[in-house]
C-alpha cells in the first residue's frame, strides 16, 4: 500500500516538472507537432499533393492573374514585388509598426491596396482576396512558420490564447479541449486535428470552395454552438496569431485540402 502511494507521488512530481518546462499548456510539444495533413485520408492527401488535381490551384491561378495584371490605372502588385513574396506568409500575422496594428496576410494585402494602389479593400472571403492570399501564401509552401513574438505582439498573443482556452457555446467546449487534449482521437467519423492553420487559405471538401482561416474558426465556433464572430474581428485576428505561434516550425501547406 505504502509503495503505491510513493509511486503515485513520483508521477505527480514528474507531471509538475513537465508543466514547468512548458508553461503554456495549450502548446503542443515540438516533437508532437502534426499538420492537419497527417489526419487526412490517403485519398485526400493525394488530392492535396497533386498540384494539378488540387482544386485550390484554380484560385492560385486567379491570384497570379490578379497579382500581375491591374484592372485600371493603378499599379499591379507585381510592379513593386518583382521577385514575388517568397517566405512572407511564414511571418504572418505580423505587427506593423507604421500603422500600429496587427495584420494577417489578408489585412496586409488590403493595406497595400488602399495605401499604394489607391483601391478599395477587398471584402473578407471575397473571391479576389482568397485568390490573391492563396497565391501569396503558396510562394511560402514548404517553409516553416516563423513567428517571433515582439513586445508589441504579446498582448495579442495573450488575447488569442485566452480565446483558445475559454469554454464557449451550448456545448461548453474550448478549442484546447479538442485540439490540445484530444487530438488524434475520434469525433464521430473524423480524427481530431491539432488545430493548426498552416494550410490556409485551404480548399475544404465540406465547403467545395477555398476559404480563409477565419471561416474555419467560424465553423469551429458554430460547431460548439457558440455565436461566431464577424469576419475580420480583432479577436479572430489575435486567435490567428496565437495559432501561428502554436504552430511555429510547421511547414506552410497553402493551398491545402482539408475535410
Amino acid at each position, binding site marked *: 500500500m505504502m509503495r503505491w502511494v510513493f509511486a503515485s507521488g513520483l508521477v505527480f512530481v514528474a507531471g509538475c516538472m513537465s508543466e514547468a518546462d512548458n508553461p503554456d499548456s495549450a502548446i503542443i510539444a515540438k516533437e508532437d507537432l502534426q499538420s492537419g495533413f497527417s489526419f487526412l485520408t490517403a485519398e485526400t492527401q493525394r488530392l492535396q499533393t497533386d498540384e494539378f488535381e488540387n*482544386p485550390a490551384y484554380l484560385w492560385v491561378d486567379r491570384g497570379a492573374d490578379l497579382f500581375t495584371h491591374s484592372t485600371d490605372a493603378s499599379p499591379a502588385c507585381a510592379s513593386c514585388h518583382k521577385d514575388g513574396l517568397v517566405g512572407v506568409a511564414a511571418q504572418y500575422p505580423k505587427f506593423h509598426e507604421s500603422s500600429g496594428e496587427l495584420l494577417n496576410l489578408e489585412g496586409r494585402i488590403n493595406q497595400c491596396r488602399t495605401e499604394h494602389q489607391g483601391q478599395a479593400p477587398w471584402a473578407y472571403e471575397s473571391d479576389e482576396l482568397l485568390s490573391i492570399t492563396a497565391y501569396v501564401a503558396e510562394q511560402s509552401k514548404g517553409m516553416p512558420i516563423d513567428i517571433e513574438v515582439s513586445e508589441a505582439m504579446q498582448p495579442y498573443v495573450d488575447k488569442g490564447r485566452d480565446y483558445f482556452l475559454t469554454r464557449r457555446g451550448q456545448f461548453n467546449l474550448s478549442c484546447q479541449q479538442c485540439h490540445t487534449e484530444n487530438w488524434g482521437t475520434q469525433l464521430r467519423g473524423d480524427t481530431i486535428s491539432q488545430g493548426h492553420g498552416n494550410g490556409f487559405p485551404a480548399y475544404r471538401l465540406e465547403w467545395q470552395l477555398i476559404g480563409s482561416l477565419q471561416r474555419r474558426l467560424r465553423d469551429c465556433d458554430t460547431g460548439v454552438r457558440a455565436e461566431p464572430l464577424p469576419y475580420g474581428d480583432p479577436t479572430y485576428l489575435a486567435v490567428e496569431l496565437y495559432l501561428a505561434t502554436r504552430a511555429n516550425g510547421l511547414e506552410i501547406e497553402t493551398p491545402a485540402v482539408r475535410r
Partner: protein
Amino acid sequence: MTGIRLSVPETAARGEVVEIKALLRHPMESGFRRGSRGEVIPRDIITRFECDLDGTLVFASDFHPAIAANPLITFHMRATESGVLTFRWTDQNGEVWSDTASIAVT
C-alpha cells in the same frame, strides 16, 4: 470567374496511350440543398463535357447532380495524330466554357 486547368502531354509517340486531365471551376449546385432559411438553392450544374481532336469526338460525358463542385475529369486516349484538343463544358442553361491544348504525335 471561371478557371480551367488542362493537363495534356505536349508530345506523344504514335500509338501511345496518354492521360488527359481537365479541371473546371464550377459550383455544381445539386438543387437538393437548402439555405439557412430553408429556401431551396436552385440547381446549377454542368450537363455535358466533350473533348475533340480537330473536330473528331474523343471523349464525352453526361453530368448529373451528384458530381462534386470543380469537377476533375481524367481519361485516356491513344495518340494517333497531332492536332488540337478542344475541351468543352456545357451547363444546364447552354452556357459553354472551353479551352484548347495541342498535342504533337511523333
